[in-house]
């Protein structure tokens, strides 16, 4: 069965707490780069929580915008890679093949959401912190791009389990680490190809919008607008 994985992020629920960021760190072997490198804007996080300010005191407000890879249907990053290191996989995700990547960084330039990160160095895990590294995915070497994969290792695992048990993947059976941990339940993940999935239902919400829709990238991450006031 073909899947159309999608993510919904309800900004009415997002509190900006950053649990998704650290969950992603743990799930995806994301290196810690230290203060000096962080000061050079080189954080390796695959999901970031943008915090914008709006208004002036005392009406000032913050707007949180968690930004994982949008897994665009018409992904600008895929076009420009000269070596097919990033490609559209069978589920419509933008997959990265680290071994193919030669590090032109063109994909990162062409990503309007700036979700791609580059391995500026060979990052090290001081022993025994490396014991935590997930065996499901590689530790990337210097010179390659990486980005959020919608936790493709989890999707693969769920597919294998489902295949072993001779069934389809159940709705909610597979979620990326960020969605799994999100304390206020602001994130939802599922298969749009399944007409009965929760996400299919959720995305009928009139609050939905996608980032930079005018660019025609057709992102797979859909946001739900924040609401004001009580009631609906």
């Amino acid at each position, binding site marked *: 069965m073909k899947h159309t994985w999608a993510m919904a992020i*309800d900004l009415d*629920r997002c*509190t*900006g*707490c*950053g*649990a998704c*960021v*650290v*969950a992603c*760190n*743990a*799930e995806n072997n994301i290196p*810690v*780069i*230290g*203060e000096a490198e*962080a*000061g050079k*804007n080189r*954080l390796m996080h695959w999901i*970031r929580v*943008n*915090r*914008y*300010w*709006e208004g*002036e*005191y*005392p009406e*000032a*407000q*913050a*707007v*949180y*915008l968690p930004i994982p890879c949008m897994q665009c249907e018409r992904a600008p990053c895929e076009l420009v890679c000269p070596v097919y290191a990033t490609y559209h996989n069978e589920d419509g995700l933008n997959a990265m093949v680290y071994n193919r990547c030669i590090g032109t960084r063109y994909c990162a330039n062409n990503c309007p959401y700036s979700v791609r990160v580059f391995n500026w160095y060979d990052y090290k895990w*001081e*022993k*025994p*912190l*490396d*014991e*935590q590294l*997930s*065996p499901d995915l590689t530790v990337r070497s210097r010179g390659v791009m990486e980005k959020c994969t919608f936790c493709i290792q989890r999707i693969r695992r769920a597919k294998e389990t489902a295949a072993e048990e001779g069934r389809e993947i159940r709705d909610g059976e597979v979620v990326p*680490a960020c969605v*799994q*941990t*999100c*304390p*206020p*339940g*602001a994130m939802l993940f599922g298969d749009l190809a399944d007409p009965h999935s929760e996400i299919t239902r959720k995305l009928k919400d009139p609050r939905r*919008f996608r*980032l930079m829709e005018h660019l025609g990238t057709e992102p797979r991450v859909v946001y739900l607008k924040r*609401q004001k*006031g*009580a*009631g*609906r």
Partner: protein
Amino acid sequence: MLDRRQFLKLGGATAFATLFGGCDKVQSRLIPFVIPPENYTLGEALWYASVCGQCPAGCGVVVRVSEGRAKKVEGNPLHPVNRGKLCARGQAALQALYHPERLSRPMKLSGARGSGAYTPVSWEEALSLLMGPLKKGKAEAPGSLLMVSEPMRGHAGLVAGRFMKAFGSKHRVAWDPFGPDAMLSANAAVYGVRDLPEHDLANARYLLSFSGDFLETGISPVHYAREYGRMRGDRETIRGKVVHFGPRLSMTATAADLFLPCAPGTEGFVALGIAHVMVRDRLTAASSAAGRLADDLGAYSPEEVEKKTGVHAHDIAAVAEEFARNQPGLAVAGTGAATGPDGAFHCAAVALLNVLAGNVGTPGGVSFPDRAQAFAKYGAEAALLAPSPESGYGGMRAALEKMRGGAFRMAILSGATNPAFTLPPSLKFNEALSKVPFVVAFASFLDETTSLADLVLPVPTALEAWGDDLAPVGHAGAITLCQPVVEPLHDTRSMPDVLIAAAKELGGEPAKALPWSSFRECIEKAYGGPGGEMEKALQRGGFFGESSSSRSASRTGSVAFPKAAERPIDGDPKAFPLALHLYPSLTLYDGRGANLPWLQEMPDPISTAVWRNWVEVNPKTAAGLGLAEGDGVTVTSPSGKITAHVAFNPGIAPDVAAMPLGQGHTRYGKYANGRGENPITLLPAGEMYALQATRVALAKTKLSTTLARTGNPEGQWKVKNMM
């Protein structure tokens, strides 16, 4: 299916990999597969349930273990507190487990006290070093033993409590900088229950937050964040509204629909102002209580409250009416209110609103679920299994006084609350401790406190130890069980284990009080042992759903009106124009998370800073002081002076400077040390641990460091470009 061609290809690749892959690294250890370790299948992950030990909230976790190593911590979906969710700190528990600087062996002091020079010793030697003074103390002056810990829960508390009692010392104090002491006494006064209530956010229509930090660093952030999400989006036609009062636009404040800034340490007055309007305009559900409080509330008209707090009278009136008309509604006080100059008063004033709205014991209101009935069998000792002891700041101060007087011959330190770091230096914890001849510390890391000990005994982390726990809120009566999810990484022994062994060696009373061979046996005996119900519970992570979520009716009829005590604010407003607001850091909490790289590198949601602390000021205030974002400043209070970088917060009151706690370590390993200075330094050694009762002055200075932030100072204002 492999065809011949593919087989050859794969074979070739394997040969290649074997040949050249082998050049890289010599395989040092082979996994013996003749007799594989228990539950060990290569490539197959197992999930073990336990409890997250990163903060006192007591969330249940499941840990993914692959090839004998913990890979990922997730919330336990069955656990009533967090229902599968987990915060950033909980996710980082793995880094505490596999931390390169974890103590792996017992260490004895080899230099001067506090020099940090230790030599590793064997457990035998360590235990003999421990038993010497212990035996001598028991024989000569049993009352000279002091135990300083964080509030302990479950059977670990029982073991520690019984040990101290059997030893003959009543000097057991607990220290938790954000402990619920103020909240507990307020609840006792207002609800008549000395316990932490359950706030049913999910069913509330209106939430008043008074410096609430229930989404970030409160009593149970994951629990309440989940509840908050449900409050906002789980009901088809109702979306709960949140109004936040506080000195600073905090993470929780940004989640609110309406943020009304008030001066630090005045939250209670705002609450009383709202209560005043409710009573005046007959908007209360509990009319009998309202009648009795009317006189007391007379002094808190919105106009009066405006003078004290800076919140406009018409806002107070409007919010009061909206709150009263949108029931069920809730009022919650946060750490900011509880650590004010008179925390108990503020918390009580806030709690009063719940009583006036008639929301005690109702859905969408405040309730007090029964604590675990399983503990009832201990009778009077059950208190030891609740967070114990309940001494707090006052107990700590008293103990320090006695230490200085030379009352203690030996001190046992345990827990992550690090008093040498979290108590104001003016309280002189270090100096007092130096008066104790023998100090033993149970710890996973050397920090400012443990590095003052003569003997440091390494303990397992929460993911490697046996235990049980009762969460402070959201527990629904459930008991969480902890089990080692991985083989202990180092040669560690838990404090209960060591106490049990010590009691055995002491013989007599202590041996009788702790009759087990190990703490594991203690837990197994308590919960029916292996094989039975406990095994099932271990798989699930604890005993959930057995006890109904019964809401005990509480005393709401004779509410004592909270009296505000006049507490002097430290510092002359002329010399120190800004009120200092200290708050726990979202990631580092009281500082215990500062040695975990994941947490250091997680951008703060408000300042977006990483790896260093900062002082938040209003851009207008900063402009007046000639400060730009990122500039270095000295922060001076009557009690101390530190430096920090400026971060703008457009939602902080202009006369407030706020700093997160948690940074400024000097002896907590390379990830934590030298990341700014500790704002606790600015506090006086007052009667209260008041984080909101000091004034400061800021002055521009040159710093050699820079503050790394993820948000572009200009771009962070351009949300319009994105949405």
